[in-house]
């Protein structure tokens, strides 16, 4: 939420002294956006989601450590390399969490965004405060995007720490065959985590839209997670090859292309394009819905 949207005409009927202090007051710490972030990352449910995400690399690392003599697993091929280089736990953890666990967490938080407020009745009090419907949607959208970023980094950082503890680390051999230093590989790991976070934005936008349709948070969460599953199913039906390039899950694995030298960009760009498109379409739909909606809850 931009701070420039502070209204200047709102203080018409207030005493002049109050007007002066109001205009000079530092806004960042007191803004609704700051409050939304604080509430989001203080809420036990969201912290539990993040803890569960952090636990996945631990389980994955432990599994690899215990079965290291029988390298034979999924994780997009990365998992076989984890025992040689702990940094690969970051890549394999992101590969494992992206199709299911990250969408689940994002679906819960985004599906709850507006519907949760409506369901508990706080939406009407925010609106008469007045928060402004556009501002509310912008702040909610920003908070969900921040959650996507935080959730992805929780997985990555947890995997990095577990990898560091359980496995040797060193130079990384890329998919294209070259070997790069640990430091350079770390930069690529950060880039990959950012791309994973960006991959979730399309789903987040769908969740935000669905949450403007209902007052029942659990329904919005279920629909959002269901859409991810549906997209995965559509992905596996060959007859639907014409629409598959436009499914938001289509290029989710494209982040692996960062592990080439030079980075192979077409699929990454396509993924960002898809996510941008979904954000634009479902963001507009959410705005159209919320700005005209009768708030009866």
């Amino acid at each position, binding site marked *: 939420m931009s701070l420039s949207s502070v209204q200047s005409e709102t203080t018409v009927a207030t005493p002049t002294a109050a007007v002066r202090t109001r205009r000079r007051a530092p806004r960042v710490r007191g803004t609704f956006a700051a409050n939304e972030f604080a509430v989001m990352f203080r809420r036990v449910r969201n912290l539990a989601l993040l803890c569960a995400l952090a636990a996945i690399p631990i389980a994955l690392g432990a599994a690899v450590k215990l079965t290291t003599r029988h390298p034979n697993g999924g994780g997009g091929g990365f998992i076989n390399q984890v025992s040689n280089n702990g940094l690969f736990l970051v890549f394999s953890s992101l590969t494992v969490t992206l199709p299911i666990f990250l969408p689940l967490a994002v679906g819960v938080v985004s599906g709850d965004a507006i519907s949760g407020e409506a369901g508990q*009745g706080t939406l009407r009090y925010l*609106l008469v405060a*007045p928060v402004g419907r556009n501002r509310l949607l912008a702040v909610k959208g920003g908070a969900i995007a921040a959650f996507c970023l935080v959730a992805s980094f929780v997985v990555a950082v947890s995997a990095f720490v577990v990898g560091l503890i359980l496995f040797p680390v060193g130079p990384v051999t890329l998919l294209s065959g070259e070997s790069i230093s640990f430091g350079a590989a770390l930069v690529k790991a950060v880039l990959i985590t950012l791309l994973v976070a960006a991959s979730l934005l399309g789903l987040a936008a769908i969740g935000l839209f669905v949450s403007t349709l209902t007052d029942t948070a659990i329904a919005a969460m279920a629909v959002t997670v269901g859409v991810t599953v549906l997209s995965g199913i559509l992905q596996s039906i060959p007859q639907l090859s014409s629409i598959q390039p436009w499914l938001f899950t289509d290029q989710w694995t494209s982040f692996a292309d960062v592990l080439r030298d030079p980075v192979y960009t077409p699929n990454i760009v396509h993924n960002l394009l898809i996510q941008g498109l979904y954000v634009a379409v479902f963001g507009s739909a959410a705005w159209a819905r919320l700005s005209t909606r009768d708030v009866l809850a």
Partner: protein
Amino acid sequence: MTTAANRAADAGAATTAIATSGLSKRYRGGQLAVDGLELSVPPGAVFGFLGPNGSGKTTTIRMLMGLIAPTAGRVELFGEPIPQAGNRVLPRVGALIEGPAHYPYLTGAQNLARYDAADRTADPSTRAARIGTALERVGLANAAQKKAKAYSLGMKQRLGLAAALLQPRDLLVLDEPTNGLDPQGMREIRSLIKALAADGTTVFLSSHLLDEIEQVCSHAAVMSRGRLVTQGTVGELGAGLRARLAVSTPDAAAAETVFKDAGGTDVRVEGERVHCDAEGLEPDAVCAALVAAGVRVFGFGIERASLEDAFVALTGEGFDVAQ
């Protein structure tokens, strides 16, 4: 608190606090919840908003606050159109709509901080102090650091009121503010409303408790089946009804005859109580006639119409759900 009074005075008589014209709402089911409402709440009034359940009170309040869009008609708060000017006008309005609502996982103070942050005109540097004052005013200062999910119904109601009192307001819209409170709490809230009104805040009070309206309000409006039946000062509402002359006696039949002989109209016998329209009768003469006729008079007097009588006469019903 003189600022609110000054502002109300500055606003002058020209800007009505709440004005609606032809306000109607038809829900998607086709049901006409509010039909051509012409509401006018003068600044500084304590305005009682009455009606049976399902008569359209809450729908009206939601339209006043810009939460739902009218099917037809206009709403103006302090002369500015709602919902268009909502961001400008609503900071001057505190509201309690259809019961309080809170974030159960936040403390009372954190709940208020969130609502205050949502208001762009609220100064963050005075927030903590204003929250403290608001909690103090509704008697929740000791429960400020308790999670809202641990609050009782009455405490939640108080917290909802505290949210409405975070800033000095020009208008308070309170939907059933004493709901869930014990008698002591009701008295506290009523005296709080009176104190706020004395400072010049306009109060729009919807309530099911007629004696509450009678105690607190200067003006009132009555809704029935989506239509406004009447509005005016509380005195005017009662004035529409005639006083009754009533006698308590075991000799009901004899008393009835005396009333009729004295020219009383609309004579009714209810057990040991006989009453008739007091219009045009001399109470002292009727009493003497009763005694002369050998009627044993246990009680005798003129009964003024209460707001409840006015209400029942206007809506033709008690507090049953309409339809």
